[in-house]
């Protein structure tokens, strides 16, 4: 089977499927300037405005820095501009240094240093323009599916997610893994009730132990925040869609990763291996933050299943929408890429839809814009390490 596409070869050997200039603010105080610079520059510039404060506890700011550096390092980014207000714990120079190690062009901008927002916007636009010229020198070459890291996400689930969209995407993941690539799904709270199935699929005892420990920790964190995940899940929307218990939701959710062995589990925004098979990432269940974690981990393409309908995208990675609900396909077709509702209507087998999903991933990698990209859906959010989690870390230590 043909599994090639044309991408952008980076200095560090990774292959990008887009050639964006990322404009990365280090805090909420720099977010408006970052957005302004990108809006002014052109569609090739993609900002990642977010809500993290200028001062965070050390663990939290380390995570913010890891996410920003990871997004900048993502091979879909041809060049990056890191913007700080100038009073942040996370310094633009530090983020820029981490990104520059990939060999790509990186610049920084400090709002305070250049004299406020207006000069920052002007300076930023000129810098972004120069970065885009540098990024345009990237070599385009043929690459193979084995170089793809594909993140898999679900949001707005209903009963069709578990019986049509997720198994179809799972088929596509199996094909990707067979072709030598990496597939990654996350949302640890949605392993609860199905973790025994995943645990049995882990390649070794260490991975299994790590997986179960992560599930336990997510559950404990929720307890600390006064939430019983078993009571809060499935959400009211999920229930309306037909999901009854957290086990039912999780069993449907994990099918989106396919059936291959679980080769590892990485932290939020930690680098995902290339050619790694199925690797899980420990993320929260909030889809925007979860997608960002995998993009920061190096995923070039995201496949996102939704039964009830979701329009979520990402600034630097194409997000493909797959729905298993024929009504959602009809109602929101402009936001959807792949119709898996044919499974529910008895017109197509899961395997056939899986093949279409895999083709769509390769098409997106080859440059075909997804519905979310066409509509410029570019949600971005970073998971904040909560004070209660920090407290728990202290107690564990």
């Amino acid at each position, binding site marked *: 089977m043909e599994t090639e596409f044309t991408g952008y070869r980076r200095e560090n050997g990774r292959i990008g499927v887009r050639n964006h200039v990322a404009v990365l603010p280090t805090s909420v105080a720099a977010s408006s300037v970052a957005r302004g610079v990108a809006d002014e520059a052109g569609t090739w510039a993609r900002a990642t405005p977010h809500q993290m404060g200028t001062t965070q506890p050390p663990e939290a700011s380390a995570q913010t820095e890891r996410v920003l550096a990871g997004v900048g390092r993502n091979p879909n980014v041809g060049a990056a501009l890191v913007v700080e207000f100038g009073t942040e714990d996370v310094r633009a120079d530090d983020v820029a240094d981490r990104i520059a190690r990939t060999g790509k062009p990186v610049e920084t901008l400090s709002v305070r240093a250049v004299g406020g927002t207006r000069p920052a916007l002007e300076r930023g636009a000129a810098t972004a323009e120069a970065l885009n010229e540098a990024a345009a020198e990237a070599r385009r070459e043929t690459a193979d599916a084995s170089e793809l890291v594909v993140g898999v996400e679900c949001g707005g689930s*209903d*009963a*069709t997610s*578990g*019986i*049509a969209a997720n*198994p179809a995407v799972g088929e596509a993941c199996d094909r990707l893994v067979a072709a030598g690539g990496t597939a990654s799904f996350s949302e640890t709270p949605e392993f*609860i*009730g*199905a*973790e*025994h*199935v995943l*645990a049995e699929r882990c390649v070794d005892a260490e991975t299994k132990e790590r997986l*179960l420990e992560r*599930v*336990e920790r997510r*559950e404990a964190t929720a307890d600390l925040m006064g939430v*019983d*995940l*078993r009571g809060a899940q499935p959400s009211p929307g999920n*229930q309306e*869609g*037909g999901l*009854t*218990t*957290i*086990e*039912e939701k999780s*069993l*449907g959710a994990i*099918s989106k990763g396919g059936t291959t062995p679980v080769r590892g589990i990485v932290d939020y925004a930690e680098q995902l291996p290339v050619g790694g098979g199925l690797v899980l990432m420990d993320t929260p269940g909030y889809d925007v933050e979860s997608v960002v974690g995998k993009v920061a981990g190096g995923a070039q393409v995201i496949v996102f299943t939704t*039964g009830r309908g979701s329009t979520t995208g990402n600034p630097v990675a194409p997000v493909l929408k797959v729905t298993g*609900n024929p*009504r959602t396909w009809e109602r929101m077709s402009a936001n959807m890429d792949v119709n898996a509702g044919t*499974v*529910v*209507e*008895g017109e197509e*087998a*899961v395997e056939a839809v899986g093949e279409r999903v895999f083709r769509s991933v390769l098409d997106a990698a080859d440059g075909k814009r997804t519905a979310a990209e066409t509509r410029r859906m570019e949600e971005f959010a970073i998971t904040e390490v909560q004070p209660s989690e920090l407290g728990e870390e202290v107690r564990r230590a």
Partner: protein
Amino acid sequence: MKGTLIDGVALVLHEDDTVATALEDLAAGRDVDGEGRMVTVADDVPFGHTFALDSLSSGETVRKYGEVIGRTTRDVAAGEWVHTHNIESTRGRGDVATEAER
């Protein structure tokens, strides 16, 4: 499709399952016949929701995907809508569930 389609209107995902998923809005009184498991749907069952293939006593485990998805909170007759009003989670943690619960 993975699983078995019954009467063109419902899906049984695994042979051990005790519930089927409605693939369209099913009206109460509708006979669903397939794979030798004939049930009359007892309630209106919305698209995507499940109904019992067998009668289940209170506290009995409910299976979908071949796995336990919860247990009944009261007696459920074959054909009844199975949802949050008559089923609850048995285990947030599958790995700590007892063998009997699996």
